[in-house]
Structure formats: structure tokens, C-alpha cells
């Protein structure tokens, strides 16, 4: 378990989270290399089916990162995203998958440090939870 390298997908909104990831880069902030960013124009675009499919394919963790609440570039997309994430979390727990494997984060486009922190924090969380039960199976 020690060398468990989680596979994590981050759906990042273009205006804040993705920009923050770029800022983290330009500041050379070092963070966990497990996160794979998928850029979406707004966290409001986040699609429950796509997230569930990510888990089906074997993602150990997924997070959605949007602008700070109240600061969404598209006004309210991030609020919708949060609610949708909560909805999917409910489904995950029904499926016996820890709902903490899915998270919603908010940060501003300038918060490179926060982006790095989130990546580390979430990676640590998933490492602690271990591989996704979808991969491992119930019997194990």
C-alpha cells in the first residue's frame, strides 16, 4: 500500500482553478504529481455522468475546482457545481464508495498556493483512503 499512487482527476474551471494551477506553475510551487487536470470553462459545466464514469474507469479520487463562491466568472456556475457534487457524493455513498473521494474546492485565479495545497491535501486524503473500491472490489 505504501507505493499506492492514486489516480486523481481534477475538473478545473478555466478562469480560476486552471489559472491558479498556472500560477502555481509560474511560482514553481511543488505539489503532488498524481493530479490530472481536465479543463472545463466553468465548474458549472461539471457533468455527473462524466464524474461517475471517472470512478467507473478507476479514478481513486475526483475533485471539481471552481472560483470562490460569489466570484464565479459565470456568476453562479460554482454553486451549481457544488450542489451537483453533493448529489454525486450521495450516489457514491449508496454505491459503497467513500463520498470523500469526490470533493468540491473553490479558489481564485491568483491562488497558486491554494491550488498546490489542494492538490497535496486531496492526494493525501486519497492515499489515506487507499485505492478505489471499484478497482479493489468488495471481496478484498
Amino acid at each position: 500500500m505504501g507505493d499506492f499512487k492514486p489516480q486523481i482527476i481534477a475538473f478545473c474551471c478555466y478562469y480560476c482553478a486552471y489559472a491558479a494551477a498556472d500560477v502555481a506553475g509560474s511560482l514553481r510551487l511543488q505539489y503532488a504529481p498524481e493530479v490530472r487536470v481536465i479543463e472545463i470553462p466553468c465548474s458549472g459545466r461539471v457533468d455527473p455522468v462524466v464524474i461517475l464514469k471517472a470512478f467507473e474507469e478507476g479514478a481513486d479520487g475526483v475533485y471539481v475546482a471552481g472560483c470562490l463562491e460569489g466570484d464565479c466568472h459565470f456568476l453562479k456556475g460554482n454553486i451549481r457545481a457544488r450542489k451537483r457534487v453533493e448529489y454525486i457524493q450521495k450516489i457514491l455513498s449508496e454505491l459503497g464508495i467513500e463520498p470523500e473521494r469526490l470533493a468540491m474546492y473553490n479558489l481564485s485565479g491568483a491562488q497558486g498556493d491554494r491550488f498546490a495545497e489542494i492538490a497535496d491535501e486531496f492526494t493525501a486524503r486519497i492515499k489515506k483512503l487507499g485505492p478505489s473500491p471499484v478497482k479493489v472490489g468488495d471481496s478484498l
Partner: protein
Amino acid sequence: MSEHAGVKTKAVGAVLVVGGGIAGMQAASDLAESGFLVYMITFDDSLGGRMAKLDKTFPTNECSMCLLGPKMTGSLNQVNIKLLTRAKLSNLLGQPGRFTAVVERYPRYVDESRCTGCGQCAEVCPVKVADEFNGGLSQRRAIYKQFPQAVPNKFAIDKENCIGCMKCVKVCTAKAIDHRQQPEILELSVGAVILAPGFDSFDASLLGEYGMGYYPNVVSNIQFERMLSSTGPTGGRIYRPSDRKIPRRVAFIQCVGSRDYRNKYGAEYCSAVCCMASVKEAVIAKEHHPEMEVTIFYLDMRAHGKNFDRYVNRALAQGIKLQRCLISSVKEDPATGNLNVSYCEQGEVYTADFDMVVLGAGVRPPGSAGQLARSAGIELNRYGFARTGEFNPVETTRPGVFAAGGFIGPRDIPETVVNGSAAAAAAAELLSAARGSMEQVVRYPREKDLQNRQPRVGVFVCCCGSNIAGVVDVPAVVKYASSLPAVVNAWQFTYSCAQESLQRVKEIIEQYQLNRVVVAACSVRTHLPLFRETLKQAGLNQYYLEMANIRDQCSWVHRDYPRRATAKAKDLVAMAVGKVCRNQPLHLEPVPVEQKALVVGAGIAGMTASLSLADQGYGVYLVERRPYLGGLLNRLYLPQRGENPRDLLRQKIEAVINHPNITVYKEAELTHLSGRIGSFHSTLQVGEKTVHLHHGVVITATGNCEAPVRGYLYGKDNRVITRLEMEKYLGENKNIDRLNTVVFIQCVESRQQGREYCSRTCCVQTVRQALALKELNPGVNVYVLYRDVRTYGFMERDYRLAREKGVIFINYDLDKPPVLRSGSEAVDVDVYDPACREELQLAAELVVLATAAVPSEGVEKLAGLLKIPVNEDGFLVETHAKLAPLDVPAPGVFICGAAHSPQSIGEAMAQGRGAAARAATILSKAHLLAGGAVARVLPEKCAACLTCVRVCPYGVPRIGTDNVAEISAVQCQGCGTCAGACPNRAITLEHYRSEQLTEKVRALFNGEVASSG
């Protein structure tokens, strides 16, 4: 059309821009995008100017080159910008509207049309000379490229140092080198000229006391900046030149050659940017070398720009030391190469040892200023910069000739960009009749119809010099990429964004019949437009492109894990390939533009913007909440550097009222806004009446106001007044001769908890008022209690004059603010004077408070209506702090003036004019192109459930007459909230369709091989 423009002075629809820096590029792109042909000449070999030398920019720490790269390539690719390098203006004949510019063009000795930028010539060149681009810290060959990302990406020969060995000629397989090239003289017919040659840095070796030039470990700020740059002489590491060791203790010395009029090499003015530049360099250096101790020795910390004080406070929190003092000398210990700095603080002399000293060398007029002024027929000011008006900073002494950027005087990047736009507006005002007459229309090759073809993907992996390749195993990524399904092949580039690489991409697309492209390089945020342009030029739909960010989000952030960074890069490439195979061509459709502007706020910025657009021939609706025009300008009385704000106010109001293109609505408020860029519908409440307007753009110029004062007895003792009340008092000149003592208190409720910013205009205003007081009553005692005197730029002169006239400046600390008591005769002001280390008690008949500038009341509501973000201080947030200071994310909406941040009259006018130029890039077009990555309804799936109607933050979807949802492509902002909410998957967000995103996810897991690497 042009026949009707008037035979007598038929204007030429072309503009000459002198200078290829950020000011010149901004002016050129604004003009080119609004219907003018631009000739851009630079004496350099590349575009980029000063900004190209910077590693990062303050206050966002963004990579300068990353911002500049797309801008440079954009300028080069803009068909209406004709770039001439190694060229200078030698004469300017004719009148405004019809000039003949005589341009001398010097040979590069390299045929630009043949050079591929491969660099083999430089490898064989035997000559090595100091590389001035890197401040002489490295060497280059006689045949060279200015810097790796140079645009155009072509080599050039430095003939002075060339020995004529012809090795380069032999090695060049492209046969591009031609040692026989001769200078040529070009005569260009233009209607206006914009001078933006930039500025030079002060040569600190002229001042002996700092040891520059003979102590190797004393370097200039530009040298230091180059060291920080990953493409610089040290690859981003700070070395001591003497022993190439990393310095542990670094000192920055500010005001080298600035604010120093006594020395014959010094300059009277403040260089305005060095404080922030040094703080930034200190911050970045500490990021590169966390163990480094940095001290900045300064006189006043001039952090007067937007978010600057916050940046300085952050630097302090990160451990950067700021030491207010006067430097007396720098001495080297020859044994160690260390430097001993003596400085004077509060009357005492101290010394400290450092491993390296960085000199904040000031700004100087460009070396070419004299020649350029003569050629262009303009005057220079006392400091050798272009002489321009205080209130019209881009207008030179010759009509039709405008100036922008550092050539006007020291200024930072956003101000330079604003000047560039303002100069463009000024030229466009002059040439409005000729707009479009010389414009060339871009034609792309016919788009290939590939919709039903099997994907043939080409993957281009960028090394970004060593930025990516230094961490990620690029050849391994290339190999992996070429093994992926549907990938025809993968290629490696040193710089994929280089001109030559882009050309190569186009060739490869053709050669391999590619129909999909993946570029694994940096961020879509900076480079997507560039690569899309390349696809278009190659006849591919621009949406057949995906990028994998293997730099900003990979190599830069996983430096310690090269293997895992490589694995991640492979994953990101696989994901991009997965998606690109699902991409579909999207096309933009023309939608009409209502060629009118709505300007909100009729202060000086709003009036200037309105007049510029009106003069450019566009209808303007100018909306003012108050019953009068002019805003805060109504409250300014004292002349500013010889120009009278009262006259300005009168002239502008008159011009606005009489302009046939301007409709003014006073006592009016914007209550509703709908529509989209190019076609907004707004509703005004004008008194009792409701007015509906239709316009293509909105310019917000709501200004700022004085913050209410709570302390300092204001409102309790009528001898305490604000700075604006003081203006009026001085303007009316009542009983001033009776005053004995006047005390000014600076930074009242600015730069402190809750209002962590500088109000920018107060120091300058205070000094001006102090001088006026002294003039009206030479016997009056004037004290200015300040935290930092921020008379930036040429305003420093007033500060000097004030001190000479006997105005006493006392520094106070935020922890120990002055205390006021009401006395019967006077207001007693207690303040601690650090210079003589004692408590002073001043008996003032008048106390003037430098009140904070805060955004106008209700700006949040307006910002909400216009969808402009507001920062924590209440000021409007621009799209980009550096390069897009007048744009906001909402398309078609612009900002200017003090609603952006506190600013002077001249600055607000420049922003007003600049915003007009930005607006004209839209208003000049009859149609905009809409569509692309927007929501699309699949009518056969729509259940008309109204979910999209309810969730859209912009209220765009509606259920149409045929009972299915309709989403207007022009109005759709492309957030995809509706697509995520549609219960029947009847809405797709183009380019982000569910199956495209799913494919990205799948590709990650199908590529287990990569992940395990």
C-alpha cells in the same frame, strides 16, 4: 467611401508605430483591429522591448515572457501590422493625416524569408561578444538571435563584430545569409505616427559610490532580472559573478541615478518602477533560493499602483527586509568579494555585509530620443523624454504625432499598455474618415472538410528550452505519444511557439495529412490562440486542436519527481489525444454590431472616452448619475504641472455637450442591461423617465470619491479639512495670508487594515498644495506627516521644490500615527519625529487630511449588472493586471479611470482614451463572429423542461415557438451550466461535450503504461 472623405486633406488610413515594445504592440494591435494598416518599426531585431528582458511581472508574479509571447506572435501574425526590424524613423514630412515617414532600414544580413531560425550559423560563428540583452553576463556570437523567443524568430548579424569569415554562409543550408545586404530608405505614407521607443536604464557605473563596474558582485537590476530568467545567462540561478556562488545575503539599493539631481549623472525625477521591481526580484530570488536573505535599502517605498502595497506586505511576510535609509557607500572586501554597505538611518550610520548588491538603476530616456525627436519634429522635455501634456499624456508637440510608454516618462507595464491604446485612439480620432481604406483582410486557406475522416493526429511536444525538458523526459513523451492510437507521429520542439516551429507544424500537417493536432507545451490560457491560428493557416478547423499543459502544470511543479512528471506528461498527452479524436469542427457566424457606445460616468475619464469615440465617428450615450458633468474634476483647482484643471473641465464639458455624436443623460442610472457584445440593450432611469438604448459596447467610468473620515477630529473641529476641501480653499484663496502653521497628514485611512492600498494621488496633491500655500503665504510653516512620499515620476520635482521652499516632511509610522487635540487657538498635533528622535507638538490653524480614494457608491450594483468582478477594495477588476488593464472578462465591456484604481487626471484621461481604442476594436466592425464553444440544443432530445432556462446565470436560454429550448450562440457565454443540468442530455457545450470529457478520462486509464512509468 474614401472619395467622400474630403479631397482637401484626404487622410491616409495607415499609422506608423515606432517601437516594438509593449506600448508599440498595444497601439499597433488596437489600430490594426479597428481598420487601420500599421507599420511597426523597431531598431531591435525582435519585438518585445523591455518586457522581454523581465523574468516576472509584479504584482502577480506572472512570467513576463509568457504574457509577451502571444502578444508578439499576435502582432507578427496580424495581417494589418507590417513589421520592419532594424529600422528607424529618419524624417517625417507632411501634415497630420498625410505624413510621409522616411524610414531607414538597416540590413540583418539574414534574409528573413529564408531563415528558419535553426541556429547552426551561430554554432559555427567564431566571434564571441558580450550579450547586451543579458546585461553583458553572457556571450553571444556575431550572428545571433536576441533571445530564444524572439519574434520574428530570425537570426541577424552584428556587423560591427563580424570578421567576415563566412563560416555561417557555408553552413546555412537555407541560403539565408547575405553579407552584401545594403541599408534601404523607405517612404511610408501614413496618417499619424506613434512614438514608443521605450526607455533605457541608467548606467550605474557612472556613479562611483556603488562600485558598479569595478566590484564584480555589484550588479544592476536588469542583470539580476536576467539571472532570474530561466532563459537568461544563468538559467534562473542567482550567481555571484566573482565566484559563481549563490549569494546568501543580497542587498538592493534603490534610487540609483534617480531622485538625485545634485549629481551630474543623477536625475531629478523618480523612476517610478524600481521599488516594485526590486521587491519582485527579491521575492522571486527568495523563491529560487529560499535560504537567501534579502534587504532592500530605500528612501520611500513607492508602491502606488493597484495591489502594490499588498504585494509589498506579502514580501515582508515572506521575510524580505525593507530598510529606509540613505546609502553612503558600498565597499568590497577584496579577499571575499563581499560588499560592505554603509547607510544612514535616523541620523546614525550603520554598516552591513552582503554577498551581492543589486542596484535599482533608474529609468533614462531612450538613447535614440534626440535623433527621434529631430526626425519626428517633436520637442523633448527637460529630462529628455517626449514633451507631452500633463492632461493629454500621449500628445506630443507636433499634431498627428503621438507618444506612448516609457518615452513619455517612467511608468509601469499597465500604464504603458494604456498609453499604447490611448495613442491608438488619438490616431484613430484623427484618421476616422480613412478607417478601413488601407485595411487588408485576412484570408485563410479553405478549410478542409474532414468531418467523416478517420482521425490522423500529430503530437508536438515542446521542450520550452529547458523549462519542460529540464524535468520531463521529452523524447520519452514523444515516443509514447507516437505509439498512441490514431497518432500518426510525434515531434519535439525546443520552443513550439517559435515562429519557425509554427511554420514547421503547418508543413507537417500538410506533409502527413494530419487532421488533428495536439500540442504538449504550456497553458491554453496563453498559447491556445497562437496554435489555433496555425491550424487555421494550415486549413484545419481551429477546434481540431488540443493542448496538454506539461509545463505550468507539470514540469514546473514536479521538479523533484522527474520520472513521475514524465509519467504525468504522458498521461496529459494521452488525454489530449483522446479528446482531440472526438473534436468536431466549429464555425463562427457573423452577427451585427450596433456601432454605438454606452459610457457610464461623466467624469474626466468618461468624458474623454466619449469624446474619443465620438470623434472616431461612433454614437455615444453618456450617462451621469449627478445633475452635472465632470465628476471629481469639479473639485480640483490647482494647476498641475502648468495646466489648469478648471480650464480642462470647461473645455471638456463644452465639447461633450456640443458634440453631435454624444447624447448626455444626467441624473440617470443604468438599471438593466441585456444582450451581448456588439448588441447590448440597456435601460436607463432618467429622473421619472425610462430610456431604452441599443449599443455595441459599454465603458464604465464611475470614478472614485473621498472616503468618509472617522478620526482626526474631522467633523468635530472645523480646522480639520480634507484634501479636496483644501483644493477649494486654495483655489478661492481666502485668508491664507493669516495662517501660521498648516499640517498635512498623509495616508488617512489608506494603507492600513481594511484598506490595504495606496490612494496614489494624495502625496502629489499634498505637495502641490504645500507649494501653493508657500506661494500665497511664504511665511507659513508647512508640515507634511507622511509614511512614504509617493511623488512618483516627474512629480518628484514638486517634492524637491517643496522641500526647498521649506516644507517640512516628517515620517510617521502606522503604529504611531499623529494625535490631534482641539485647542482654542489651534489644533495641536503630536507626532514622533524619527529624524530628531523626539515627540513634536505642532500648533496648526489648519490640518489637511489626505483622505483615501474609494470607489463610487453603488459600484457593486453596477458591476453586478455589467458582470464586472470587483476586488476586495471595491475597485473593478480588469481581465489582466498587466496586459489588459482596460478590458474586463465580460465581452464588450471596458473600464477606465478611477473605478479601476485611484489615478491622476492625466492617467484617467489616458485610460478613457485607451478604453475608447479598445471599444473601437469592436465598434469598427459591422459584424462580430459568434459561436464556437457555446451551448447547442439538440431539439429532438429537448423535453422543454425549462431547466436550462432556470439555471443559466445570464438568462440566455428560452423555450422557442416550436417548443424546444433555444440558446443564442452570440449571447451564450459558454459556461456550460445548462449542459451540466439538462436532464435529457439535450444540450451540449461544444468542445466540452460529455463524450469529449469522458474520452479524456478514459484515455487516462487506458494509458496505464504511462501512469506506472
